[in-house]
């Protein structure tokens, strides 16, 4: 049994330590807001925060997450996260929406470290998150908008 602290709630999961955190979150804990896109840290759809840092949960063994604070999209509720979500709705960012949990997790982490990011900061922080629907320009605007709101 591995103990996971997800969104300030403790879960016991029956998983081998090398199972990716993504599948423990989705299939064992049942939080499906975190998405599977590539499995090799290329798309960012599975982005969660581990001790406040964005990680690709598809390439992060569940064993290494034990005892750490994990935040998924369902647990994004502090000031910065709320501003990001608000800006995302205001600018109608999502299209299919599948990549957006990951986008929001990356954007929230960016705004925590850089409250007023430049376009170059956004490029650097958001490059790991693919969007096949092509919502990039709205993501950029929404990050700037969220920065204004915070």
């Amino acid at each position, binding site marked *: 049994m591995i103990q996971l602290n997800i969104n300030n709630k403790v879960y016991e999961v029956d998983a081998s330590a090398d199972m990716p955190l993504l*599948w423990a979150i989705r299939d*064992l804990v049942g939080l499906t807001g975190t998405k599977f896109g590539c499995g090799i840290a290329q*798309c960012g759809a599975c982005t969660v925060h581990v001790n406040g840092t964005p990680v690709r949960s598809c390439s992060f063994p569940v064993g290494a997450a034990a005892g750490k604070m994990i935040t998924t999209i*369902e647990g*994004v509720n502090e000031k910065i996260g709320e501003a990001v979500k608000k800006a995302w709705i205001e600018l109608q960012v999502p299209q299919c*929406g599948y990549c957006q949990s990951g986008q929001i997790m990356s954007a929230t982490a960016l705004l925590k470290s850089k409250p007023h990011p430049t376009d170059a900061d956004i490029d650097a922080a958001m490059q790991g998150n*693919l969007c096949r629907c092509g919502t990039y*320009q709205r993501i950029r605007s929404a990050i700037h908008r969220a920065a204004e709101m915070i």
Partner: protein
Amino acid sequence: MTNNNSNINRRNFIRLTGLTGTGLILGLSGKASNATNIENLSAAADPFELGAFIMINPNGEITLFNSKPEIGQGTFQSIPALMAEELEVSLDKVTIKQTGGEKKYGFMQFAGGSMSIRSEYHNLRKVGAAAKEMLLKAASTQWNVPVSECYASEATIIHRPTGKKLGYGELAEAASKLEVPKSPVLKDPKDFKILGKPGARPDIPLKVNGTAVFGIDATVPGMVYASIERCPVFNSKLVSFDATAAKKIKGVIAVETCERIHEVYKTTGVAVIAETYWAAVQGRKALIVTWDHQGNETFNSKDFEQSLRDTAKKETGAVAHQQGDFDKAFANAAVKLEAFYETPVVSHSPIEPMNCLASFTEGNKLEIWTSTQVPGSLVTDFAKEYQIPVENMKVHTLFNGGGFGRRLYPDYVHEAVQLTKKIGKPVKAIWTREDDTQQGPFRPMTYSAMKGALSPDGKAIAFQHKVIAPTLDMKKDYDKSKSDETMTEGISEQKYEIEHMKNVYVHHYMPVPLAAWRAVTSTTLAFSHECFIDEMAYAAKKDGMAFRLGMLTKESDTKNVLQKLKEVSSWDKPLPTGWGRGVAQYEFFAGQGGYVIEVSKKGLGIKIEKVYAVIDLGTVVNPDMVSAQVEGAATMALTAAIKNGITFDKGKTVQSNYSTNPLVRINEMPKVEVHILTNGGDKIKGVGEPGLPPFAPALCNAIFAATGKRIRRLPFDINKIV
């Protein structure tokens, strides 16, 4: 399971409507025959099977049904909006339910071909207007006042002289007893409150907080997971497999074969079924499978591309369209041009991989939860294929994590259905990204041999577009005397007034699974077509805009699009040194759009400085969503133009994941400025696709203007223009 967007079943329905009566339920029928009737379904035992679109509960709850799968294009807002506008309710006060292919919702229950609004704009407004008229009548009867003294607003009927009010819920029961008006009066567009305005999409909050349920998120009790090994060499046969090691992996419960059915392309794979998806993937890695490649292991892109070029030279092709006498005009022309254009095979690569949860239960019942663009045909086709009565089929159309044409094809549903039948448990089969990239189906390439001729004064007099390509249906035995409409899409629809024209199609078989891709063949043909028009412009010593407009003396949407582009891009304003601008437009089945793109030289490469887009719509339902679709189409077009796409070697796909089959990332995508032409009238054009085809030619025409380098083969390296 709790799904915000699942179909309601009868049990939920009873709960929803309470015991006091069903309220007012209106639907549509006769869609298959194209004669649409509005029907009162209020007394029906199962209004869903009968195609309910509007349901007004006596407690005031209003439910609107969306018959078009939500794939990111915004039908979760735009389709209910058609009804809400006429019904006088705001969208944030209604519940939206997704239909699941129920027979009575008709054969247009799919998302494809940029058809959603085009097929529903009038029908669904009529249903909304009919419901409103019935509610008005019910109120006026109750008050004993003329109906002309009453009006509807915010789900309430109001008596103008006295200010008396009755909510829709209070009137639903009485309204349900009235006759449905035959021809309800539609609102004058100038009174629209929702349509034509940038309304917020009701699915967006769910997609921002992680609660939206996509196909991959569906769960049912007792469900198991499957991962399927398919031969990487196309068209191979399964010989045998050894599952001993796979079955030793903890959590693996079964290993079974299943057939992937993609139109005529059928192959057998080996599925590892396990308690968790991760265990299924581990088990799959431990499989030992023997395939018979049947000689297909020699197929490779290099030889195949050469064979396309050879075919182009050898075969004259079948005529798709002709006018005047092209051969004679070309032979005698003062100035002649010829060029050969090449495009790549590409993948759809939605970020949500293919997946399907299927549950086959006793009594020959089948329930499917999936991301699909075609719930309607899932019901009819699977009922037929697996001999299940249609009434025993239940499809849950969940949010699609991208469609782009890939989810028009239910090969991934077939696999899950076979597996649940075999093991008697609900099975969720999920493709890996590698499966998705390597197995296709793919958008095929088209190669184009272009010919054009000019008069001595630089007027276009003859034009030929010869397309060399396979057909999307993958038929090997093709009657070469016939042209194929899909593979020559749009090339004969362009409005340029050129006297002598002969477009032809040459069939060339390709042994891999193929499929329609967003904007289909126009995505490659627009590139060759509009770049070659640019070549003719330069040969005529005219700029691309003037040359095109010179060939458009008659009024047309094409002319309007180009004039709008000219205006919004300040086409005639000089650019800084080292910059260049290009224009392209394309008209095809889905609609019409165009771009002006400005680029600058940056070292060896080029930088995209400005992107101006114009989409011609006539009638627009949600302008913000239209912009989003064009922004997205431009991004997809840029990926197809500059990223490496799909190639084959040794009978297999070379690329496997986003690492080797990359998509454009945020740092590579310029801003797109979208302009919508809404000249009103009865014209309704498609939104999802027209933003794609003209992007690559506008970009390449701009690169020529900046560098003098003519790009005739996609993809190209934007960081190294040589």
